[in-house]
């Protein structure tokens, strides 16, 4: 959006640089002057919070890799070595482990914010798709990172999750052996997971750059969901949103630090402090909390569907629950973006949120009795929301009248 540039090179050196690599001009346009809707609320600070989370994970992760040993004989001990012997290692390790949970907490808020305010709707479909791609990459990275301490939960998570691929007909078993580098999860598996766990955050960073690029073409969505009409609707990103985002980050760091300093293990499982034993599975294996909704969907399919057996069926629904997010921009047929102006959508949105939390709970519950039935109902509702409720709502719902501009909505609120 070069038309918003106010940059004029001040010194001779800046002018020389601007003609060769206009990096200062670019930064000023996109990090400082970028016109941003003036009505963004605190839910919009989670984009910046997520950039901070990625930064924390990369910095702490690079440091941990200086002390960690990716070998089945030494991996478990090397993590304990980090926590006990390395200077400050206890905090660096807990910030990295807690950081993964905080990263997912922030990304779920960010995704649900996008869902409520219709941030995936035209012309922001690519922005949304890149976001879902980042989410998938985050899940892969977090899963492989969880394997590295080589505790019981690590090894069995690796076993169960790689086994998902064995459900694929014909190529399943060769693919499983290719992924593991052996007939079971072992040293080759640990080694490659370490390699990929180090690689993927940088891939995420690259997709984040694309995500921000795709954001800066149409510009931000906003809580009322009407397009920016003129300069009275916007504020420059700096200092208005750099400061608001910084304040959001500080607030976010309060629970983050509480976990890291006072309860670094509360989100983990005690079984992961027992070294991986490929002959004994812990009595209750559950994934980390951020995978629970999808894990509940995986487990909910315990019956054969026509010629598809229960194992493949579970895998199809598990994959489908994530893949369906890519199609959200076309499944939601309503033209009105913001949920604030959609009286019926608003209700179904909150039912969807409650259902998602229910899936989280059910993913951790034992697979027996009433929980099995509830998990099936919740799984069905998850898909029903995307495949039936959203397409139908767009046709039958009458949205409330939209303000003519962002400016008007802000001013009317002030006088109300």
């Amino acid at each position: 959006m070069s038309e918003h540039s106010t940059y004029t090179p001040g010194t001779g050196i800046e002018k020389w640089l601007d003609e060769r690599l206009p990096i200062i001009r670019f930064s000023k346009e996109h990090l400082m002057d970028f016109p941003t809707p003036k009505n963004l609320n605190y839910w919009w600070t989670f984009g910046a919070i997520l950039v901070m989370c990625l930064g924390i994970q990369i910095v702490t992760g690079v440091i941990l890799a200086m002390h960690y040993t990716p070998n089945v004989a030494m991996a478990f001990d090397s993590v304990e070595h980090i926590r006990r012997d390395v200077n400050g290692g206890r905090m660096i390790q807990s910030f990295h482990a807690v950081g993964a949970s905080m990263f997912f907490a922030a990304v779920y808020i960010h995704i649900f914010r996008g869902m409520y305010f219709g941030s995936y709707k035209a012309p922001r479909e690519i922005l949304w798709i890149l976001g879902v791609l980042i989410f998938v990459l985050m899940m892969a990275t977090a899963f492989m990172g969880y394997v590295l301490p080589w505790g019981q939960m690590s090894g069995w998570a690796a076993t169960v999750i790689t086994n998902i691929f064995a459900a694929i007909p014909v190529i399943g078993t060769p693919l499983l052996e290719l992924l593991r580098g052996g007939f079971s999860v072992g040293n080759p598996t640990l080694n490659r997971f370490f390699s990929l766990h180090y690689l993927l955050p940088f891939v995420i960073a690259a997709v984040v750059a694309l995500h921000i690029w795709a954001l800066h073409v149409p510009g931000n969505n906003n809580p009322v969901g009407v397009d920016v009409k003129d300069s009275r609707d916007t504020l420059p990103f700096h200092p208005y949103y750099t400061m608001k985002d910084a304040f959001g980050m500080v607030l976010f760091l309060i629970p983050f630090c509480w976990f890291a300093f006072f309860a670094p293990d509360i989100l983990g499982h005690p079984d992961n402090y027992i070294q991986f034993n490929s002959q004994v599975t812990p009595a209750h294996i559950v994934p980390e909390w951020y995978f629970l909704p999808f894990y509940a969907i995986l487990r909910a399919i315990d019956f054969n569907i026509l010629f598809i057996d229960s194992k493949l069926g579970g895998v199809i629904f598990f994959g489908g629950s994530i893949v369906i997010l890519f199609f959200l921009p076309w499944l939601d047929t309503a033209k009105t973006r913001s949920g604030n102006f959609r009286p019926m959508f608003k209700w179904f949105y909150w039912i969807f949120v409650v259902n998602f939390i229910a899936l989280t709970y059910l993913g951790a519950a034992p697979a027996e009795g009433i929980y099995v039935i509830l998990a099936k109902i919740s799984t069905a509702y998850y898909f029903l929301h995307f495949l039936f409720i959203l397409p139908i709502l767009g046709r039958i719902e009458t949205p409330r009248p939209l303000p003519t501009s962002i400016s008007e909505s802000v001013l009317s609120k002030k006088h109300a």
Partner: protein
Amino acid sequence: MATQAHHSTTRRDFIFVATGSVAAVGAAATVWPLINQLNPDASTLALASIEFNLANIPEGQSVTITWRGLPVFVRHRTQAEIDEARAVPLSELKDPATDEQRTKEGHAQWLIMIANCTHLGCVPVGDSGDFDGWFCPCHGSHYDSAGRIRRGPAPANLVLPPYEFLSDTLVQIG
């Protein structure tokens, strides 16, 4: 292209497609070793066959041994367990197999199976479940005293490794 007015395909088009095809095959041939290195390596494959002495396992007991990195159950079954497994009609089974098919002739007391649940690979717990066999704690699959799936999400019976009896007490797995 100007020539398209005269010919639907030209020699230039052919050369273009042929060059592209060779480049694609070349790229695939270069990528394959980069993928293939992920497959089990020579040291992993070298562990493919083991011998195991059964003499020390009393009746009613089982041990878990390791073959190719996989846990393997070796169970010395009691006559009651064998009788129970044989009494089950095949129509009740999700993955039908007779007890005779699950063991070697003349060695019906020995049940040798890969100890990974056929659902997602956890190791089931012995002497438990509703069918006097194994119970998988991860997702609740029950196996009977012949290691056959009876209830739960697992699609198949516990897998039998290739094995043979070298003598009455010595078995070779793999």
